[in-house]
């Protein structure tokens, strides 16, 4: 009898843990750091790529933030009026986190998967497909952190960080990177040729342009607003803007949850698909 009770009660408490342990055993994860170490070695020689990753979002900030900012003046957002540069900077940070993560997790991963046969070599060792997924996404995050730090330093110097909550901007940038890197890698495992990368552009460019990045969501009619609110970059922009401007409150946690779920789902799919493709 007591055994039956235990047998019933146990799963409730233990199930998520054992399921997680089971998933780690099958897919791995911890070995991802070795893949990161490999990438770090390669990029020591190609630091120029890193430098351009730092510079690009800053070009946007100077051109759109300062240039267009001069024309536009200020924007009304959530009842407050802020200078346009202040308004657009957090969105550019979120966008650059997305772009960096997508670049790393699509082009680079596709090359390693189909041409360099890197993962074939990796999976012949004790590493598992989950290590590959986590390693790639981890690496995208490390690069993303570097870019975001540089961007935040410039924002700080320009007085664009309005709220103490800005301290959370870096973790928010990483969360954005995680969500898009995981989704990007998952999508990449379905791609058959370089031509399929047109889809990446087809998705990321409208996200960049229409996610209330350059103007407030209130510009759109109600139906379009709802549509935009469902898309991931809007979530990241709203989170970042909320933190930097100190507006939004606990509702920001919804954005966090959205991005977390997106990243977790992407990570899972990416690991599974790497198994499907290579462990045949």
């Amino acid at each position, binding site marked *: 009898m007591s055994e039956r009770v235990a047998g019933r009660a146990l799963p409730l408490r233990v199930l998520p843990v054992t399921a997680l342990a089971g998933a780690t055993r099958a897919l791995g994860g911890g070995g991802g750091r070795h893949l990161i170490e*490999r990438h770090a070695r390669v990029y020591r020689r190609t630091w120029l790529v890193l430098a351009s990753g730092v510079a690009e979002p800053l070009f946007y900030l100077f051109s759109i933030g300062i240039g267009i900012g001069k024309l536009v003046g200020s924007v009304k957002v959530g009842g407050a009026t802020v200078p346009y540069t202040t308004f657009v900077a957090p969105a550019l940070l979120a966008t650059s986190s997305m772009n960096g993560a997508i670049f790393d997790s699509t082009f680079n991963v596709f090359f390693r998967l189909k041409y*360099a046969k890197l993962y074939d070599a990796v999976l*012949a*060792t*004790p590493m598992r497909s989950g290590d590959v997924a986590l390693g790639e996404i981890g690496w995208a995050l490390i690069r993303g952190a570097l870019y975001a730090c540089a961007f935040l330093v410039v924002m700080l110097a320009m007085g664009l960080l309005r709220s103490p909550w800005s301290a959370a901007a870096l973790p928010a940038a990483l969360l954005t990177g995680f969500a898009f890197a995981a989704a990007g890698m998952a999508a990449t495992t379905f791609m058959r040729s370089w031509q399929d990368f047109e889809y990446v552009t087809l998705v990321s460019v409208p996200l960049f342009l229409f996610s209330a990045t350059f103007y407030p969501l209130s510009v759109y009619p109600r139906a379009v607003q709802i549509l935009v609110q469902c898309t991931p970059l809007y979530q990241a922009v709203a989170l970042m803007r909320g933190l930097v401007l100190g507006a939004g409150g606990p509702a920001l946690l919804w954005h966090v949850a959205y991005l977390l779920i997106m990243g977790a789902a992407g990570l899972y799919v990416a690991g599974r698909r790497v198994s499907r493709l290579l462990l045949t």
Partner: protein
Amino acid sequence: MPDDSPLIRARGLVKRFGTFTAVDGIDFELRRGEAFGFLGPNGAGKSSTMRMIGCVSPPTAGELTILGLDSVRDGAAIRARLGVVPQEDTLDVELTVRENLYVYGRYFGLPRAVISERAAALLDFVQLADRAGDQVEPLSGGMKRRLTIARSLINAPDILLLDEPTTGLDPQARHVVWDRLFRLKRQGVTLVLTTHYMDEAEQLCDRLVVMDGGRIAAQGTPRGLIGEYSTPEVLELRFDPADHDAAADKLTAVPATRREVLADRILLYVPDGDATLAQVRALGLDPLTSLVRRSTLEDVFLRLTGRQLGE
């Protein structure tokens, strides 16, 4: 694990890709310290078998135990103790020669100091020490193969898997690779290799299986297989293409254990090739060329499958 238990044990091992059966229920066992070979033509199922042993391809059916562990459940633990030289090199072209060993060792979670020490010794062993700092891409095919072999040894594996270690190499490069594999064998490393070169199988393997169409046609030692499936000597005769068929008919009068009429040659399997050649001449036949040679695994394969290995 007791020392006499097999390192690899396969029972009824099957691999299917969709409806196509690449490996069709094979059994074999491998003991510590032996060099074991899969000899067979392209498409025989050698790589499919090797990938299952390497725990990167789940068997469709059957049992596969490696180092006493289950190949599916304990894949990572098994891979930690295997060295793998895949059919196609998977060297990291974004890294230098030395870094290839270093990074690969890290995939096994080996400490940096251990890897550095081993990498230096392994680069010496495969004669690539002077290329340690070079990129991989400019290396010759033979050098890449040797680097892959060095890489596969970084974790001091219990079993070394080599899938067609010398396919695509020129004769000189092949001999360098063979020489290195001989040395490993003498050091007591357990080798599993696949090949479609009968000379490679004959020279390197203590024991081998002849594979064809996903099945094992025969297994034994190279000498044993030749003794069982062929005669000590073979007389190879080549005639003018115009006379080829007529000569083949006439030759049925010459006593032979077995006769193979190939497109370009006629093979007579006999105990004494010179004596048989005299009989051929006595019949009034005058071959363009004649050759008396020992039987090889090629002859075993021909006998077992009716085809030549290269076909």
